[in-house]
């Protein structure tokens, strides 16, 4: 009984997470700025982490949590790579702007 109800709760959370992931995808596609997309991607990543954490229990395979851990960290690095990209782009533009003058 309790098992079943827990399962039901897992399903509910999973569903909510999935919907949010969908919304994040919509945001990533709509934009409108690059920063919105980065935000959406980051959010999508964390939601994936949540989703997989729940699914691991849903499937009864807690050893999948290693995987979830990895997701959380990798996602973080992705965001930093994006930031570095922005920084370099800004510096580049500044450089070329100065050169233009």
């Amino acid at each position, binding site marked *: 009984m309790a098992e079943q109800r827990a399962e039901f709760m897992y399903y509910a959370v999973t569903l909510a997470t999935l919907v949010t992931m969908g919304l994040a995808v919509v945001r990533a596609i709509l934009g409108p700025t690059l920063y919105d997309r980065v935000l959406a991607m980051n959010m999508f990543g964390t939601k994936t982490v949540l989703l997989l954490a729940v699914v691991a229990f849903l499937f009864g395979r807690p050893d*999948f949590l290693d995987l979830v851990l990895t997701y959380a960290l990798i996602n973080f690095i992705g965001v930093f790579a994006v930031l570095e990209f922005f920084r370099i782009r800004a510096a580049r533009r500044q450089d070329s702007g100065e050169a233009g003058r």
Partner: protein
Amino acid sequence: MQVLGIYYYWVFAILLMIGFYAVIAKLNLVKKLIGLTLFQAAVFLLYIAMGKMEGGTAPIYGASAEAFSSPLPQVLILTAIVVGISTTALGLGIVVRIKEEYGSIQEDEIQEIDRR
């Protein structure tokens, strides 16, 4: 379950198509590589889907597991993913060089430059 099965193969086909279209129709070299990545991802999906067994679980001996999905397609796709990323990395290296030499990463512009 069967709905999902059919859906997997359709998604495989459509994803393959989307990626392939990007590879042959897009003129931007990076876009081609992105298309290639999607193209390969579709194939990965094909393999993994065929390895799934109803009622099975991940092929790691665990407490309660009785039946396992097939480990072989997973191994193959692990290798294929690595091959894919290697190809992408090499392709990006070439793109960077092309940009430096030609100042463009559009296929048509490069052809134009070479024709001159």
